[in-house]
């Protein structure tokens, strides 16, 4: 897993609520055994017509918008548990998703794959959408150690919640299995005492 500590980038705005994992990566593209290559089918049916030509009006096909931060409406990532949703965003180059609410399983999957979901209040999210509308190149700075997200044009800052353990994992590029195996003895003792 790649480390993520500080990030400064322009944003891709997706002001839609309840974006589900079937939109992020439709089921027919799940037939792969590695995590690579899913980015090309990210938001496939919003991004391309059935004849594979790009849909002009979809945000990912608008060259004005780019960057490694996706800003989305509330309840992002609802639906299936497919981890491919996180993989496809990551593979596309997204490192941070900012929304006012994340679906549970998606949030966990994202954190397990070095993709940082940042939950902000509705007012900040609206403000961020407005700033991006004014200037698509507006820069947003994310600091994992400080747990802050800052809009450089207006200086507005928000701090965000992040599980201390997950924070450590993100900054160091650790994964859960390394951690669990390091406390294997304690787990076995616990199991033994309960049976």
């Amino acid at each position, binding site marked *: 897993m790649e480390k993520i500590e500080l990030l400064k980038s322009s944003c891709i705005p997706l002001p839609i609520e309840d974006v589900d994992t079937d939109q992020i990566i439709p089921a027919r593209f799940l037939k792969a055994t590695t995590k690579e290559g899913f980015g090309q089918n990210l938001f496939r049916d919003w991004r391309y017509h059935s004849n594979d030509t790009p849909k002009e009006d979809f945000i990912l096909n608008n060259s004005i918008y780019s960057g490694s931060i996706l800003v989305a409406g509330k309840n992002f990532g609802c639906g299936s548990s497919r981890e491919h949703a996180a993989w496809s965003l990551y593979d596309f180059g997204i490192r941070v998703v900012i929304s006012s609410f994340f679906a*549970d399983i998606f949030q966990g999957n994202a954190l397990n794959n070095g993709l940082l979901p940042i939950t902000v209040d509705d007012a900040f999210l609206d403000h961020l959408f407005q700033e991006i509308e004014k200037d698509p190149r507006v820069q947003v700075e994310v600091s994992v150690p400080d747990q802050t997200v800052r809009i450089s044009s207006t200086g507005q800052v928000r701090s965000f919640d992040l599980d201390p353990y997950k924070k450590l994992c993100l900054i160091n590029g650790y994964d859960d*299995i390394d951690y669990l195996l390091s406390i294997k003895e304690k787990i076995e003792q616990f199991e033994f005492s309960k049976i």
Partner: protein
Amino acid sequence: MIGPELGVTQPGMTIVCGDSHTSTHGAFGTIAFGIGTSQVEQVLATQCLLLSRPKKMRINVDGELQKGVLSKDIILYIISQLTAAGGTGYFIEYAGSAIRNLSMEGRMTICNMSIEMGARGGMIAPDQITFDYVEGREFAPKGTDFDQAKAYWSTLYSDNDAVFDKEYHYRAEEIEPMLTYGTNPGMGIRINDAIPTVSGDQGEASFKKALNYMGLSSGDKLLGHPIDYVFIGSCTNSRIEDLRLVAEFVKGKKVAENVNAMVVPGSQQVRNQARSEGLDQILTEAGFDFREAGCSACLGMNEDKVPSGQYCVSTSNRNFEGRQGPGARTILASPLMAAATAIEGKIVDIRKYL
């Protein structure tokens, strides 16, 4: 499907799987929830899972269900009240007399859709109906082992003074056959209700986008709406009880000419059982396509897809954009509502037949 059928799923277990509908097993009083691929790896490597403790929610449904109203209608009704994100961060216990009176199949349908309101899991305390279902199955404990297990299972219920972070109460009598009109399972109405209006910035745009995709408008009713496809299947509603209900209803009737209707059993065991009871014949004679067991048109992974722009009344669990194929328009409903729709070629109220 097959965990319960084989008796592998037993009260008190913790069950995880890389499928968000793992919550189905909660019907047996298990802690069951879907996980991502990395977490599956974690379980296989360590037999453990790192989690933060979920909040507790109880949903009570008391009273008598109307005739023609099934467990699918209960859960679609609950989700329409709580929205597609209303359960996020929670584990749910379903309780109340209307839940207690359901068969195990009906309970599985309820727990299955917990994730459609964002809850990782949903469970129902095990009781005699649960024990009777498990007893005698291939991997269930036998003889005195079963008695011992049952004694333990009987202790698995919430204490009278248990405290929940959130609690909801609904009356079974208020629930009518349910339908979804939008592109998430929270966008549901009772059959006689009109599609609502939503206003307010971001929510309004998403709502309009959903209705535009579905080709429907606020104020419309779904009753009488013509339909192109009917899909009876998925881990929500493809158990033997579902197939029996559908077969009983369509016996001697014919699927409307404008409708392409299929029945897909949830497992080989269900398929074989249906064939041994002659249900496949009844369904085929009525004009349904009786297919091989599997997920099929629930998520359009194989060739079973609904063409763009066409309407499908489906007994599955998700009406997301493109879920049943690019451009497909899904209306979620109970197996009885789906069967009646297939026969008439348009959405009807199943209660008029009863």
